[in-house]
């Protein structure tokens, strides 16, 4: 399966040139761009690990692409995403978030059902990969 979180997961994977274009769009809007990685793609895993701080005051998308490739050298088998933060009043949150690196194989998620009273079912979603300890999930 393909984890389709993020703004562009239904498009073919981006080249570095395409990533550069999207990042420059964010920078030109005044947003701070950051790089995050994880080996736990659960849909509600909010806090991916940060590859350094958001790059405040960075005018050049090339610096982000450089850092992304540094991150890939270490976490090339992980999910890596680019996130753009907008600190404007009334927003103060993420404006764009897209996956730029993913494991070669994505085993997907296990759906567990616990039957409770009244035909109700309690659902739980677990990435198959998270059966293994953090750091050894995707090789």
């Amino acid at each position, binding site marked *: *399966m393909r*984890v*389709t*979180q993020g*703004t*562009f*997961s*239904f*498009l*073919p994977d981006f080249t570095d040139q*395409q990533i550069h*274009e*999207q990042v420059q*769009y964010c920078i030109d809007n005044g947003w701070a761009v950051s790089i995050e990685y994880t080996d736990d*793609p*659960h*849909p*509600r895993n*909010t806090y991916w690990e940060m590859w350094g701080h958001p790059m405040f005051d960075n005018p050049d998308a090339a610096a982000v692409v450089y850092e992304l490739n540094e991150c890939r050298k270490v976490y090339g088998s992980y999910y890596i995403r680019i996130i*753009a933060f907008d600190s404007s*009043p*009334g*927003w*103060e*949150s*993420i*404006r*764009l*978030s*897209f996956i730029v690196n993913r494991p070669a194989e994505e085993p*997907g*998620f*296990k*759906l567990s059902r616990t039957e409770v009273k009244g*035909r*109700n*079912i*309690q*659902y739980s*979603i677990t*990435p198959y990969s998270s059966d293994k300890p953090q750091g050894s999930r995707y090789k």
Partner: protein
Amino acid sequence: MPDGDKKLDAKARYSAGVLEYKKMGYWEPDYSPKDTDVIALFRITPQDGVDPIEAAAAVAGESSTATWTVVWTDRLTACEKYRAKAYRVDPTPNNPNEYFAYIAYELDLFEPGSIANLTASIIGNVFGFKPLKALRLEDMRLPVAYVKTFQGPATGIVVERERLNCYGRPLLGATVKPKLGLSGRNYGRVVYEALKGGLDFTKDDENINSQPFMHWRDRFLYCMEAVNRASAATGEVKGTYLNVTAGTMEEMYKRAEFAKELGSVIIMIDLVIGYTAIQSMAKWARDNDMILHLHRAGHGTYTRQKTHGVSFRVIAKWMRLAGVDHIHAGTVVGKLEGDPATTKGYYDICREEQNSVSLETGVFFDQDWASLNKVMPVASGGIHAGQMHQLIHYLGEDVVLQFGGGTIGHPQGIAAGATANRVALEAMVYARNAGRDYLAEGPTILAEAAKTCTPLREALDIWKDVTFDYASTDAPDFVPTTSVS
């Protein structure tokens, strides 16, 4: 001012009998509205022979303190304060029989935090008043002091996106069709296919409540099976608007509680449940971390005709105060009424921190929303993937695009229809961000994306000629003209 329009001294004013409203103090052309006044703009069509200023004064009177005759008990009150004051009457640009009347209301006339109380005055008795042929509430200015007495949207656009982990693009939805008749099991199939294929949301229609072919618990249970299956299949947070509309508040709370117990991220109500019920559900939604979707069922009965009723821009303002998170606000290009400029006005009211006067989009007042959450507008009705460039151009990024027929009617099936919409959307946002002239190049961008997406290719082929091009019944009165310099 002609002598006949002037206010009278106290003795003449309170002599028993019938007096023109403008002489009773409801017409004050020198009045300068206070920052704390509620202001309403009415389009008035007086009966033949009725003076427009008297008509405006009558509207002010009947929507505030007046009755048809002089009453001495006025003098036991600070009546000058409580009288609404018509302070400006302008001819409309295009129709000599219609006038814009500006009326200011003292803030103390209204109970804090109650749309029911506000509307009982502003659209109460006055709409049946005989000296008027027709009356339409066009816009309102709500003072910050009053805005702050309302909860506002339970979740708001920003937190909704954070909960859904979805940024940078419009959300995608679809209403399950056929809207009536599916069993719970069959209904859930549509939900599963559409969400797995790439939509963020599916939606109950306005009239799906609890009927012989599908009772509500059955629908909720099958829908949540579908939502969770789709979430596991994609790694995304998914939702389905479970319509909790019912005959009583007790029943609505019961259904909402069950939706929460099942782990739904969103519930839905219809506008026809009434303002107080909407405010109650918004409060419940805030207390229970639930996104609240409002379907504007019924609004067309009073919003559509230009001379009589209530403009949808006013309904949108009331709903932002009342506290819904989603509201259907028009598509521009789809099958339902919606002039582009007027629709932009509605979207601005839902999404901006502050609205500025913009006559060309029908917005007559500056409005400060005082940090009230923003409402996510929903575009639904006769839209398809081939219009993606126009939809993004007209409606922007913070909107739910709902393709019902445009998903479920896809020749390769529901999931393929959903995928076509998602690919078209992502391709268009990508092109926009990359600096392309996506409105002009829209069809080319879609064709390029379709090269690697067969479902999109088929969607573009089948719906390429579908447009709904009819004259609007509710276009703005003011059109900007290019100045020559």
